[in-house]
């Protein structure tokens, strides 16, 4: 009994400390912006206080524009991410498994890989006839490499003993690929998808700031242009929330697809 009460008490204390820390940050933000603090080249003159941001968020929540912005961003991420997942996983499986694929496909990808997705924006605008397509392309590029590299890594990490066992049990090439290579690489692929989802949002927001007409990134940048500073912070919080939420969604889906995989047990 003593044990359970101490555990509960420890949990409550942890929760209390965590909420206090958050509250303290909001309070600090409030004080800095209310007092228009200027310090070492940093100025809070134009930074909206938390109350104003909350009011702006409330307003956006009741505005029809919200759905439009959210819809545009989600649509771009959905398409860019799906295409990146398709290509990243397919190419990763081939490159990881077959030497000919590695020799033929990896060199061009290696050249493109160090280029940040954001650096693609000007060329993407020139390359695509619609700005919509260029933004989707940027999210695609952003998500592609984490997915591709994690998939390759996952395939290369497949225990050769499992492949040998499958061959001894009568498995042929195609069957081993589907029955052994793909499921064995699945945890690494899910990690790649989760990271890719994060970079996807990061790239989308950058692309929207430059060539968007709707979308959360556009909303954030537009708010700056029209000097509606409270909305900037609302946009920032929305971007963070959406990125975190969709990455979490990938992890939950991964757990659902791989009930046999317990990342914690592996570490223990």
């Amino acid at each position: 009994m003593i044990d359970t009460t101490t555990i509960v008490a420890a949990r409550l204390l942890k929760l209390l400390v965590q909420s206090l820390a958050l509250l303290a940050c909001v309070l600090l933000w409030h004080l800095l912006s209310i007092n228009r603090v200027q310090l070492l080249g940093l100025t809070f003159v134009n930074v909206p206080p938390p109350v104003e941001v909350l009011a702006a968020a409330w307003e956006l929540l009741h505005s029809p524009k919200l759905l439009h912005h959210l819809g545009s961003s989600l649509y771009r991420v959905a398409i860019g991410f799906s295409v990146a997942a398709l290509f990243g996983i397919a190419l990763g499986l081939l490159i990881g498994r077959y030497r000919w694929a590695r020799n033929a496909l990896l060199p061009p990808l290696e050249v493109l890989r160090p280029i940040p997705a954001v650096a693609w924006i000007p060329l993407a605008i020139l390359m695509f006839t619609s700005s919509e397509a260029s933004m989707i392309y940027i999210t695609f590029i952003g998500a592609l490499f984490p997915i591709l590299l994690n998939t390759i890594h996952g395939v290369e990490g497949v225990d050769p003993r499992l492949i040998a066992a499958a061959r001894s049990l009568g498995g042929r090439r195609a069957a081993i690929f589907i029955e052994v290579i793909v499921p064995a690489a699945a945890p690494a692929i899910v990690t790649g998808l989760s990271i890719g989802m994060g970079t996807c949002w990061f790239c989308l927001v950058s692309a929207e700031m430059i060539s968007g007409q709707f979308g959360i990134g556009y909303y954030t940048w537009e708010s700056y242009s029209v000097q509606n500073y409270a909305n900037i912070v609302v946009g920032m919080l929305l971007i963070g929330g959406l990125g975190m939420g969709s990455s979490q969604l990938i992890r939950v889906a991964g757990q659902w697809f791989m009930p046999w995989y317990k990342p914690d047990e592996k570490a223990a």
Partner: protein
Amino acid sequence: MNENAAVDSGRIDIEHLSIHLGAGRQPFEALHDVSISVEPGEFVCLLGPSGCGKSTLLGALAGHLKPSHGEIRVDGKPVHGPHPERGLVFQHHTLFPWKNALDNVAFGLKMKGVASKERREQAREMLRLVALEGFEDRYPSQLSGGMQQRVEIARVLINHPRVLLMDEPFGALDAQTRLNMQELLLEVWSRIRTTVLFITHDIDESLFLADRILIMSPRPGRIIEEIKLDFPRPRVEDILTSQRFVELKQHCLQLLRHDSHSVPLERLNPLGDDVTIDLQLAD
């Protein structure tokens, strides 16, 4: 089925087999001119010090390693690559972590194209044979070490192999579990008669299990002695303390101690050295 039921397949002939490993870097001869014949249905233990090449021999029989010289035949047919009729059980289980026990056991039948319902029925039967009824839905990570090896054995036996190749399958288990597994293996073997080639460095284990023991020298491995065992079957724990058992054990100890001044060698595995490269090429 009774124990003396005639077994007409599973004859192994190994002639002048030599195998070199570690090509490229530091090639060495793992096996030197080994010739062995095993009768259909016979239980043979290969006993030898760590790194003597016994696992290499097994890997060649399974078809994962290519001989440098010599030939291996099973029932007169030369061995070319792995085949379900030569089932291989590793020291550490190679169950698929994403399949439950039942689907792991059914894997061989799936590869043969047996329909889902039929193969699950047979797999269930096989799990019952290794005393794992009720564990069908468990993933390998939810089973104990002994249970994992039992699933592994069931997964190989479902293909009705002509020969069962076992590479120190109980080497990683604790003493009590090991003894239980040895008894279970003998019981399973009495029902599904197949030729067994069992690798071990545990003298007690080989004396308890085998019809015949082949003792190997340190690297490069050669057969230095053959011991025929006539302990009556079914065998029980009691023989472990019998006079004859102790005598034979002393004899084996002497043979294995013969070269004890040499440096202990690292353990080899039945997939050879450059495992990844070999498998990718072979595929």
